[in-house]
């Protein structure tokens, strides 16, 4: 069951505008977003099944920060900064893999134990005695939620992941995501838009009938969005009883079958939970997945996602999962195009901003969350770049009027 205590009502009279256009191409704002938003908010790094054995590791880079998620000798999952304590080199250069017993820095050869402590510096006789803890890898704040590994690079205002995602708990726990296993690894792609244009597209289902023929064929008008409330949004689509006009959808509907561990109302549903500011965890009967976006520059972002599956599946379920991923892939491509069109408008001097439908209140609710973190988003015309951070700070300190 979903959480009915959330107030998801759309106000009768709301400001239908989006963020001011300048917010999509201001380098000074992007700096603030990276340090005050991305680094201070929980980020999905991977799933525990991506690091299945002692010594398995996965690297996760974001906004100039780099993490390594590692399974230590006691089989605990740990998160460290992927930064050598000698001169800061990337300690682990491979994206994913398994190390035997220790991490060796590729620069000068300092050696670290899997628990993060320093085993020893290279040419140890050239240093004074080094304390293995003081010179150990810096650990990163980390929390595992239903198998998903969250990290946070800087302290922030969000509560623990468990508390933050409590509204998702009841409904998603049925999926047994902690037992899920990887399908085809972590997928990343660079895309030529501001990160908010990606989120703006993803935060509403108003475009589904036009942009996503496969999704329309799958769940049609049953699709509905709930806005962000305390950092979490929710959308779902229930399969329509039609056979499906498109090959992938028709066969998906044919092959997908009730998963015994799921309650009946989730047998034919795709569910999406948005996690402020930049991620979604979605589930289908066959899979769980996350997707997220990170800014590289004002006009460039990284899309990152991974799909996990039930540990046991028969041929029919495997076929269904393959078809679901086809539908999903198609949808991603369509969305990428929409984000490009949307982002382009921000460069045009003639563009007057969004005028949002009630069906796009999710977009507004995300922007309102952003405004609460960085009040500078409320400034209608582009502020001076050099003074932007100071102006934002002064607005943060100003008492509410």
């Amino acid at each position, binding site marked *: 069951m979903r959480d009915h205590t959330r107030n998801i009502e759309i106000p009768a009279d709301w400001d239908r505008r989006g963020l001011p256009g300048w917010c999509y191409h201001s380098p000074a704002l992007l700096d603030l977003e990276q340090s005050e938003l991305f680094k201070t908010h929980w980020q999905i790094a991977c799933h525990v099944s991506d690091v299945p054995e002692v010594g398995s590791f996965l690297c996760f880079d974001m906004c100039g920060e780099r993490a390594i998620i590692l399974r230590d000798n006691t089989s605990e999952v740990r998160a460290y900064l992927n930064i050598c304590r000698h001169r800061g080199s990337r300690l682990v250069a491979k994206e994913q893999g398994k190390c035997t017993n*220790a991490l*060796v820095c590729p620069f000068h050869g300092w*050696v670290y134990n899997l628990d993060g402590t320093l085993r020893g510096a*290279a040419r140890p006789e050239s240093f004074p005695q080094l304390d293995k803890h003081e010179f150990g890898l810096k650990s990163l704040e980390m929390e595992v939620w239903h198998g998903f590994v969250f990290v946070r690079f800087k302290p922030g205002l969000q509560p623990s992941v468990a508390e933050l995602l409590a509204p998702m708990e009841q409904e998603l726990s049925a999926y047994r995501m902690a037992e899920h296993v990887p399908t085809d690894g972590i997928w990343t792609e660079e895309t030529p838009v501001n990160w908010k244009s990606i989120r703006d597209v993803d935060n509403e289902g108003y475009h589904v009938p036009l942009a996503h023929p496969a999704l329309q064929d799958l769940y049609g008008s049953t699709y509905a969005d709930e806005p962000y409330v305390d950092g979490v949004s929710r959308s779902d689509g229930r399969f329509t009883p039609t056979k499906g006009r498109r090959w992938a959808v028709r066969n998906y509907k044919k092959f997908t079958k009730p998963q015994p561990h799921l309650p009946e109302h989730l047998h034919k549903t795709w569910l999406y939970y948005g996690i402020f500011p930049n991620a979604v965890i979605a589930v289908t009967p066959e899979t769980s997945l996350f997707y997220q976006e990170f800014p590289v520059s004002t006009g460039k972002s990284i899309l990152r996602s991974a799909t996990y599956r039930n540990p046991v599946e028969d041929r029919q379920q495997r076929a269904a999962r393959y078809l679901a991923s086809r539908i999903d892939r198609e949808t991603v491509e369509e969305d990428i195009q929409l984000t490009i069109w949307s982002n382009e408008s921000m460069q045009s001097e003639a563009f007057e901003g969004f005028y949002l439908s009630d069906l796009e209140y999710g977009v507004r609710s995300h922007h309102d969350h952003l405004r609460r973190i960085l009040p500078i988003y409320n400034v209608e015309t582009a502020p001076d770049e050099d003074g932007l951070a100071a102006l934002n700070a002064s607005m943060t300190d100003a008492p509410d009027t």
Partner: protein
Amino acid sequence: MQNSEQEHQRKLLLAKDGEPGSGSTRYAAAMFFYQANMMSAELLEIYRRCSKFDAEDPIDVAKYEGIDVSEFALGFI
């Protein structure tokens, strides 16, 4: 505990030449023995030099350079 860890590190120190990543595995194990005062800094440095060359046998290199390998040459037998 200490002994079983030493036993484990011994195996890693003797990781077969040529296996991918074995140079680095041997060096990391050598660091363990250095820290336990069981290996000289000179020999550790040979392991470091060989760490990126999986096919290189550090004991051979050490012998060639005239570094004392007494205990390690025998694989602790």
